[in-house]
């Protein structure tokens, strides 16, 4: 594939609003996971809640979009001058040739969950104030962003569970390469809601403690929320050496089970191999792997098999979900931005909360931060339904 430039990027999660705070937390190996006190949720678990989302206001002319998910999107847009960067791009390019590709798993379903508590006692109707299309529908977040930023190109939500916002890079890449658009706003936005908190709990996949990816005693995920964006363009002739490029995208399906990964990680392996193939890189060129690393016994075992089968046991790897929690549909984009931070700063984030690495997992899992030049990073995202996506990012020089 032809490389694409990440003209600008930003991320907002429980470890920070914007790049500077996120980097600072990663450097300090600080986790944002806290005991769950979200809404009326009564589950013994830890979550990665972004502070201050409730007080964010969406612009008045877009008030129908008001919900936690779009407030989180709005909060993230305001960091790192990202909103202004997109607006500048929109004046530079034809607005009709800037696409919007956003990953989410649950969008603003929290609004519907709350509305179901306020059903009319006699008719059962939802409250008149409930806005289906602008909050509940998966597309709502992409629609909010395109209207907020006045972008008029193709717009879509990719909703492939926890691989959603990794896969948006693939869709945007194809549309740019096909010549339909010149630039793309890509990203992921997923916010806390009862469906995922109670749902993962019902599957016994959420941990009562902060998640410990690749730990011998790992016992599940910690759910988080995040919004992360990047503006993708074709690179110009002159690049700065610390410009970040999208070099490879690999996608595959497990064809195995709805809610469990292939035990040997065959689907994950094919996604990583496809990413290397599209990037034209050998496994040895990858300096650091940002793992999917959710912290469930089966995911980490499956991913470890897959990573070792492609890279052997010596490529430094870690999951940043011990810090951020598993931000579900936003995880791919959040970890793409973390990969970009790693590349730009010559830094590999050590996995936090993991105290004793599972000796049966052969992947080289790092717990301490490393400081050395990083040229290529591979980032993994896998989801329910057996959907897999691996991305490769690199420095321009």
């Amino acid at each position, binding site marked *: 594939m032809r490389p694409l430039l990440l003209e600008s990027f930003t991320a907002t999660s429980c470890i920070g609003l914007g790049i500077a705070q996120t980097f600072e937390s990663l450097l300090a190996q600080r986790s944002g996971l806290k005991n769950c006190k979200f809404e009326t949720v009564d589950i013994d678990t830890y979550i990665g809640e972004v502070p201050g989302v409730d007080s964010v206001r969406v612009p008045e002319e877009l008030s129908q979009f008001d919900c936690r998910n779009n407030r989180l999107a709005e909060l993230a847009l305001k960091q790192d001058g990202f909103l202004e960067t997109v607006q500048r791009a929109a004046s530079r390019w034809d607005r009709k040739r800037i696409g919007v590709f956003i990953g989410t798993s649950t969008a603003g379903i929290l609004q519907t969950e709350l509305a179901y508590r306020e059903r009319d006692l006699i008719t059962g109707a939802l409250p008149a104030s409930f806005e289906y299309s602008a909050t509940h529908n998966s597309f709502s977040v992409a629609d909010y962003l395109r209207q907020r930023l006045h972008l008029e190109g193709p717009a879509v939500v990719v909703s*492939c569970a926890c691989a959603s916002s990794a896969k948006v890079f693939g869709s945007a890449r194809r549309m740019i390469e096909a010549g339909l658009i010149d630039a793309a706003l890509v990203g992921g936005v997923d916010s806390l809601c009862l*469906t995922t908190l109670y749902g993962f709990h*019902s599957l016994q996949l959420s941990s009562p403690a902060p998640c410990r990816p690749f730990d011998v005693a790992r016992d599940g995920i910690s759910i988080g929320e995040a919004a992360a964006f990047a503006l993708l363009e074709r690179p110009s002739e002159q690049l700065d050496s610390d410009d970040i490029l999208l070099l490879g995208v690999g996608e595959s399906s497990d064809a195995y089970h709805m809610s469990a990964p292939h035990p040997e990680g065959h689907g994950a392996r094919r996604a990583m191999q496809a990413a290397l193939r599209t990037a034209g890189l050998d496994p040895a060129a990858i300096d650091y792997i940002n793992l999917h690393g959710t912290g469930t016994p089966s995911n980490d075992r499956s991913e470890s098999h897959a990573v070792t089968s492609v890279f052997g046991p010596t490529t430094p790897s870690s999951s940043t979900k011990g810090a951020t929690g598993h931000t579900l549909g936003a995880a791919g984009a959040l970890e793409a931005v973390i990969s970009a931070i790693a590349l730009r700063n010559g830094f590999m984030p050590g996995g936090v909360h993991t105290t004793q690495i599972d000796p049966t997992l052969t992947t080289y899992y790092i717990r301490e931060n490393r400081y050395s030049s990083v040229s290529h990073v591979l980032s993994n995202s896998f989801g329910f339904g057996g959907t897999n996506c691996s991305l490769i990012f690199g420095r321009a020089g």
Partner: protein
Amino acid sequence: MLSAYVGGIGVLGPGLANWQETATVLSGGVVYSPARTLLPTPTLLPPAERRRTGRVVKLALAVALEASSRANVNPAQLASVFSSSGGDGHNCHELCQALALDAREVSPTRFSNSVHNAPAGYWSIATGAKLESNVLCAFDASFCAGLLEAMTQVAVDGGSLLLVAYDTEYPEPIHSKRPIPDAFGAALVLTPQRNPESVARIDVTLDHEPADTMSNPVLESLRLSIPAARCLPLLRQLARREAGRTVLEYLDVSRVAVNVEPCV
């Protein structure tokens, strides 16, 4: 311009049991008489999985299977793009209802099935399809969003692909907020090169002309009331087996124009 060959078509909707029946209706051979959409049991799935699937999975699998059979391809060899404006409305209602009660007893199966990519996951399990599969939503524009994604995949990556667009209804109380009346799905197998099964070549561009409508008011009401049925003008053009151009509704003032050139 994005080009591909349509190798096989699957359709299931109110009074439309398959592509053959739909083509006869759309080419004016018989009068359209709507009836509730009948969804077949997904015999493709192992019995344990079959029991867990809702209407949206049955619909998507039925049209996907019809399209790949008509294209005479092994579905395991196809990448896929699934696009739906909503997903499984009944499952969503049950989850929201359970979460509104004090006990908050969520069924793990319902939760697993709540992901928007559930039909794609079941399709991949049923057929052994291990290539990339993308699952999209663009509200009322979901058919064209899927078509654009599918056409760019064929054009850029050069493989054959299955496009599946489908929508089912929500029960009350969400139904009042999103009044989709019934289930409708359509699937197309798209290939980069012409082969003996090719029905037509399609060329797709973004456009701003007014969208085509259906002259039969009942079909027009179907087109407008179920987002996946926004593809009806394209299906009509394919059914007529005549060269021509059709313009489909997309986002706001954006349209998708499809030039159809039958393979004879």
